[in-house]
C-alpha cells in the first residue's frame, strides 16, 4: 500500500489513554472466565461454549496481531501464517497426546504399529520442552525461510505466493500418516494438561486467562515496537526500501526480526488454541485459513494493532452466528466482506472511526 500509513491509534492516543483502554478491554475479558466458574443455574454463568468460543477468537486475534506486524508495518503480506500457528499447535498437541497416552505410545502410533517414538517426539512428555518447541518450531522455520527470502529480496506478491506454497507444502506433509503427526486426523481426545483435566472449568478458565495474558503482552510488545525507531524503520522499509538501504540500513535484518517475532507469536497462539478447541490437524495449514487471517487484518485496519484484533473478533463472531442462522449464505457474506473492505475501507474500520473522530 503506498498511501501514507495512518499513525497507529496507540501513537495518536498516547500511552495513558491506551493503557486506560487496555484496562477496560481487559476487565471485560477477565470477567468471562470468572463468570464461567459460577454454578450453572446462576443467571450470570458463562457457558463453557461461550468461553471456548471467545478463547478461540482471542487466539485468532493474536494471529491477526502478528500478521499486522509483518503486513501493516513491514509490508510483507504473509499467506502462510497458518503454518506457524499450526506448528505451535502441534508442539502443544504432542505434549497433550503424551499426557493422554501415559507411558504407552499415542494411539495413532501403536496403530501404525510403530514400536518406539520417532526422534522428534523425544522429550515431548515434558511441558517445558513442549513450550520450547512451541517457540522453536515456528521460529526456526521462519528464520530459515525468511533468511533466504529476504536475502534474495523477495517481496510483495512473490513473497505472498511463496509463503502460500510453504504452508501448502506443510499441509501435504502433515496429511501423510507416515510423517508421524496422526495424518489428517491430527491430534484429538486430550485429557489433561499439567495434571489438570482438560475439561475442568478451572482449566478452561486458566487457559482463557493465559490467552488474554498473551494477547495483552503481544499487544504491548507490538505497541512498543511500533513506537520505537525500529517501527519507523519498518515503515520506511515498506515505502522505499532502496532509499533505506542508501541510508545505510540493512533491510534484511529488520525484516527477519519482525518476521520471526510474528511467527513465534502465531506459534504461541496456536499452542493456546489447541487445548481450548481440543483438536489440531493439517486443515489449520490450508492456504484458505491464512488468507482469511489477512482479511481480519484488512477489515480492522492495517498497521493499527488494535484494528486486526477488532477484525478477528468481528469476522469470527459473524462466522459463528451466520453458520447457524443462514448456513448457505456464509460464504457470500465472507466474500462480500473481502471485496467491500478492500474497495471502500482501505484503512479498515479503525480508519473509518478515525475519520469520524477527526471530523
Amino acid at each position, binding site marked *: 500500500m503506498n498511501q501514507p500509513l495512518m499513525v497507529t*491509534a496507540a501513537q495518536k*492516543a498516547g500511552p495513558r*489513554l*491506551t493503557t*486506560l*483502554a487496555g484496562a*477496560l*478491554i481487559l476487565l*471485560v*475479558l477477565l470477567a468471562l472466565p470468572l463468570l464461567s466458574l459460577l454454578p450453572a443455574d446462576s443467571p450470570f454463568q458463562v*457457558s*463453557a*461454549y*461461550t468461553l*471456548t*468460543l*471467545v478463547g*478461540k477468537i482471542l487466539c485468532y486475534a493474536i494471529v491477526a496481531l502478528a500478521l499486522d506486524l509483518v503486513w501493516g508495518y513491514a509490508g510483507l503480506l504473509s499467506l502462510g501464517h497458518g503454518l506457524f500457528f499450526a506448528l505451535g499447535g502441534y508442539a502443544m498437541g504432542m505434549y497433550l497426546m503424551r499426557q493422554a497416552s501415559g507411558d504407552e505410545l499415542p494411539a*495413532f502410533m*501403536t*496403530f*501404525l*504399529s510403530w514400536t518406539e517414538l520417532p526422534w522428534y517426539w523425544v522429550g515431548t512428555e515434558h511441558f517445558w520442552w513442549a513450550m520450547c518447541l512451541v517457540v522453536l518450531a515456528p521460529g526456526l522455520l521462519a528464520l530459515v525461510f525468511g533468511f533466504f527470502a529476504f536475502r534474495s529480496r523477495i517481496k510483495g506478491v512473490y513473497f505472498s505466493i511463496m509463503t502460500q506454497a510453504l504452508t501448502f507444502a506443510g499441509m*501435504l506433509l502433515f*496429511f*501423510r*500418516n507416515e510423517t508421524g503427526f496422526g*495424518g*489428517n*486426523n*491430527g491430534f*484429538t*481426545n*486430550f*485429557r489433561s494438561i499439567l495434571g489438570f483435566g482438560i*475439561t475442568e472449568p478451572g482449566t478452561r478458565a486458566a487457559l482463557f486467562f493465559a490467552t488474554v495474558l498473551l494477547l495483552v503482552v503481544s499487544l504491548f510488545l507490538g505497541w512498543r515496537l511500533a513506537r520505537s525507531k525500529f517501527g519507523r524503520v519498518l515503515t520506511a522499509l515498506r515505502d522505499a526500501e532502496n532509499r533505506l538501504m542508501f541510508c545505510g540500513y540493512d533491510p534484511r535484518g529488520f525484516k527477519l526480526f519482525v518476521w520471526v517475532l510474528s511467527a513465534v507469536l502465531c506459534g504461541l497462539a496456536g499452542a493456546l488454541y489447541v487445548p481450548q*478447541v*481440543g*483438536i489440531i*490437524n493439517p*486443515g*489449520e495449514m490450508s492456504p484458505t485459513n491464512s488468507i482469511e487471517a489477512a482479511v481480519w487484518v484488512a477489515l480492522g485496519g492495517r498497521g493499527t494493532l*488494535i484494528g486486526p*484484533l*477488532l477484525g478477528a*473478533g*468481528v469476522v*469470527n*463472531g459473524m462466522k*459463528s*452466528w451466520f*453458520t*447457524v442462522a443462514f*448456513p*448457505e449464505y*456464509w*460464504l457470500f457474506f465472507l466474500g462480500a466482506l473481502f471485496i467491500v473492505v478492500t474497495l471502500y475501507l482501505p484503512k479498515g*474500520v479503525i480508519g473509518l*472511526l478515525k475519520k469520524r*473522530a477527526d471530523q
Partner: protein
Amino acid sequence: MKRRSLIKAFTLSASIAAMGMSWTLQAAETIKVGILHSLSGTMAISETSLKDMALMTIDEINAKGGVNGKMLEAVVVDPASNWPLFAEKGRQLLTQDKVAVVFGCWTSVSRKSVLPVFEELNGLLFYPVQYEGEEMSPNVFYTGAAPNQQAIPAVEYLMSEDGGSAKRFVLLGTDYVYPRTTNKILRAFLHSKGVADKDIDEVYTPFGHSDYQTIVSNIKKFSAGGKTAVISTVNGDSNVPFYKELANQGLKATDVPVIAFSVGEEELRGIDTKPLVGNLAAWNYFQSVENPVNEKFVADWKAYAKKHNLPGADKAVTNDPMEATYVGIHMWAQAAEKAKSTDVDKVREALAGQTFAAPSGYTLTMDKTNHHLHKPVMIGEIQPDGQFSVVWQTEGPVRAQPWSPYIPGNDKKPDYAVKSN
C-alpha cells in the same frame, strides 16, 4: 478512546449474541435434534445430501405423529468442513440448543473432533458413514460399515471364481487415515489368505490428486504379473480423474476390476459411467436393490428432492450413507418411544438390540453391545445408467468388528463401548 473499548465490548456481545440466536429458535412442545453436516467447504459435496435426507426422515416421523407425542424439530448447523468448528458446533448443539441427539459427521477427523465433546457432555451422536473402525464410544452409534462389513467381504469376492479369482492386489488410496487403516487390515487379511507381499502394491495420492497417468500405467505393469484387482479407497473428488484415466488407457474391468469403497450412486452422478461398466463397489445398500421398503424409500426421496427443488433433483439418487442416516434416525425414534424418554442413557439402553426393516431389504439390528449395526454386504457392478447391479451379497447381516482382529493388539480391546477418557 471510549469508543474503541465500546467496540471491543460490542465484538464480544456480538459473539455472545451469536449463541443467543439459537434460543430464539426454541419452540415449546418439540424435541430438538441436531444435524451436524458441512454445507460449505470441501465436504459439502458429500454431506449436503445427508442433511436433506435427515430432514426428510424427520418430516416422515413427524407425519406419523412424532416421538412420544412430540414433534421433532431439526436444528441445522454448518461446520463448514472445518474440523475444530465441528467440535464447537457440537458443543453448541448440546449446551445451547439442548438437542436430544445429533446426526452428523462424514470424515473420521470430524467425528474424532466432536467425540470428546459428546463424551464430556454425555451427548448422543449417530454416525452414518463407513469408516476404519478402531473406535467404540458409548456416546456414538455407528450406522455405517466397519471394515469387516465392507472391505474384507469385497476382497473375498475378488478372490472367488466369480470375482475373477484375483491373485495380485493394488491397494490404491488417498493418503489419510481411512485408506491407510483399511489397507493395513486388508494386507493382514491377504497374508492370512497366503498372498505374498510381492503381490500386494500399496499406493497413496495426496488429497485432490488429479493426475493418475503414472499410477494407472503402473497398475498396468503390475497386472502383467498375474490376475490383478485394484482395491480403491480413493477419496471423493479424485475418483473422476482416476476412472477417466483407467478408461482412456484401455484398462477394462474384465482385465483389471476396480472395487471402490467410497464410490456410490452420488459420486457416479459426476462420472460418465459407460466406460466403467463392470467395475465394482462394495456397500451395505444400493439404490437398485429390489424390495418394497426400498421402492418407497427411493420414491419418497425423489419426491422430497422435487418438492424442495434440491439441485439436480431430476436425477436424485439414494446411496449407502443416506440409507444409514435414514435407518439411524428411525432407530433412535423407536428407541426413544421404547424408553418413553429422550434421556441419553435411557435411549442408549433402549437402542441395544433395536431392529428396523431397512431399505437394503434386511431387518437390521443394532448390536447389543458394540454400538454398530449388523449389516449385509453387497457387491455392485457399475451399470451404464450410473446405478449398480448387485452381483454378490452375504447371506444375511454381518456383525461389525470395530476392533479388527487383523490389527495386532485389538484382541485385548473390550467388545463393548467404553469412554475413551
